[in-house]
């Protein structure tokens, strides 16, 4: 993946200094201006993004040891990878990864499938009321996630929300807040909040598919499904990949929905997702272990999203 920023203007640099002294003076001046423009952001970037990571990595290699019977002074001693081993052997932490994996493996393909179908329907010539539908689909994304989570936490309560009564009427008795149904409940909250955004990303890409392609296909007798499957979907592959990467990242960092739903669902433990598990360690003053778990979590997010990008790019090159 090459961002446009990385490739542009590279031809300007070589030879620049040898041709004209005047030009080189100018470029030194502009270079200084560039650093001036960049400096405020870079200072904040280094202190608020880079520094915390290095601080967490640093902390993760130490452990706190208390002298005496836990009453005396505590001191930090270097412990190498011990915290990482402890984290890997912590069944709560490992189980939390299993849960987000389970939610993600079902929810992400389902959500993106719905988003793709809706985007294709909005892009087709025959669908009615497209403008209104597009606005409605996007509405939940404009809802702040925390407010949406509070709302769903009420909706799942049988005395307050309508869904339990509706399902009972057709003979399905379900409690949305048991240990096993919370997986579905959380997945539903994510689907409700983010399908519209993903639909919009794919829809924008569909709008840019050259008309000649679809025209030629339909002249050849291809129906809506064939045109979508053989022409439109391959053409918007990059956007689908983008939504997949965003969704994978979103699932790994899952926090708001389960943390808020936990207020009404006793089945959601305080270590339900990896971030909740790391937070739990920090709340118990195990700062070093919390740091190690944060580092592991960031690595997993990075590896998953980069890995997915590389995997799809290689597959794209083969076909």
């Amino acid at each position, binding site marked *: 993946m090459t961002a446009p920023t990385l490739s542009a203007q590279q031809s300007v640099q070589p030879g620049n200094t040898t041709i004209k002294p005047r030009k080189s003076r100018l470029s030194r001046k502009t270079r200084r201006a560039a650093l001036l423009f960049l400096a405020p952001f870079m200072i904040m970037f280094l202190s608020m993004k880079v520094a915390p990571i290095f601080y967490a990595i640093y902390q993760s290699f130490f452990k706190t040891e208390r002298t005496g019977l836990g009453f005396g002074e505590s001191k930090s001693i270097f412990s190498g990878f011990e915290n990482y081993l402890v984290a890997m052997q912590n069944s709560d932490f490992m189980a939390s990864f299993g849960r987000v994996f389970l939610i993600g493996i079902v929810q992400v393909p389902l959500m993106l499938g719905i988003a793709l179908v809706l985007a294709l329907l909005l892009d087709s010539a025959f669908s009615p009321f497209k403008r209104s539908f597009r606005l409605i*689909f996007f509405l939940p994304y404009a809802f702040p996630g925390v407010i949406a989570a509070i709302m769903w936490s009420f909706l799942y309560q049988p005395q307050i929300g309508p869904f339990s009564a509706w399902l009972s009427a057709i003979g399905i008795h379900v409690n949305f807040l048991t240990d096993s149904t919370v997986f579905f409940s959380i997945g539903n909250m994510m689907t409700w909040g983010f399908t519209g955004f993903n639909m919009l990303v794919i829809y924008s890409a569909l709008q840019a598919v050259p008309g000649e392609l679809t025209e030629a296909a339909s002249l050849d007798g291809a129906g809506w499904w064939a045109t979508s499957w053989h022409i439109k979907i391959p053409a918007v592959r990059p956007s689908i990949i983008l939504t997949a990467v965003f969704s994978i990242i979103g699932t790994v960092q899952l926090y708001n929905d389960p943390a808020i739903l936990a207020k009404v669902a006793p089945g959601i433990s305080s270590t339900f997702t990896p971030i909740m598990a790391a937070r739990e360690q920090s709340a118990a003053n195990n700062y070093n272990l919390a740091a190690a778990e944060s580092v592991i979590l960031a690595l997993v997010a990075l590896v998953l999203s980069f890995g997915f990008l590389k995997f799809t790019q290689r597959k794209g090159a083969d076909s």
Partner: protein
Amino acid sequence: MTTAPPRTPNSVPLAAQSRKPSRMPWRQQRVPFSARALSFIVMGVFALYSLVPIWWLVVTATKSSEDLFTTNPMWFSDFSLWGNITDVFQQQDGIFAVWAGNTVIYCVGGAAISTMLAAMAGYALGKYEFPGRKLVSNAILAAVLVPGVLFALPLYLMFSEISLVNTYWSVLLPSLVSPFGVFLASTYATQAIPNELLEAARIDGASEPRIFWRIGFPIMAPALVTVFLFQFVAIWGNYLLPVLMLNNDTLQPLSVGLVNWRERLSQGIPYNMTITGSLLTVVPLLIAFSVLQRYWRSDLTAGGVK
């Protein structure tokens, strides 16, 4: 028969047809009624799914706390919305207004400053050649791929060390950095600002900051609204950061405050306070979103992976 709406609102269908030849075969083929009906049903079902919870929130915010449990959840009973709103603002000596003010500081203030920083940095990365540019771009791109929430805990550990927790700064400072904003701004600057324009201004003797402010910034403005919106939503959505950093009720934003209300039924905060408070929070945001809807340029982001 419903025809496809033309892409530009004011053009007549005929003009749209001639501009978009791709749509013609569909129209001429007379799509069967069943296809349109099926499409309507599929989109209608999902529209209901999107709207039912929102409708429930609107209806429920108008109910007294007794009616909350006893009446039809999807329809109005006695209309006590105004009383609920007054109660929300009077709860705990008017803390809801304090939370709203804090939210403006964190979200509007944070998004505004971070957009400014992103504009300058994006302009520098998109329009200048300097040593280390590639390194900086790659570092920013890597930061885009690590979600902001993952930084919250390390930031908390770091801020504890320097005693910055439980202050406005502990939430505001991390909110000033938007790597995604810089990425968007630099992409847009590269594509939209013509080099000739900058060269011409340089020959005329304009200083570099002046060129940025008078030429670069106005051209980048539409992308900067997008950056602002994305960062606003990102700060709003990063619930973990204020939860970790702030113990003090009066420093918290609406998100943290309302979640705390959610679980304080036994301490005298009825459910309908949380529900009405949620509606009050959402309404200004929904209005802002519909006004600024055209700035949700997701196609700007799509360019990143191509």
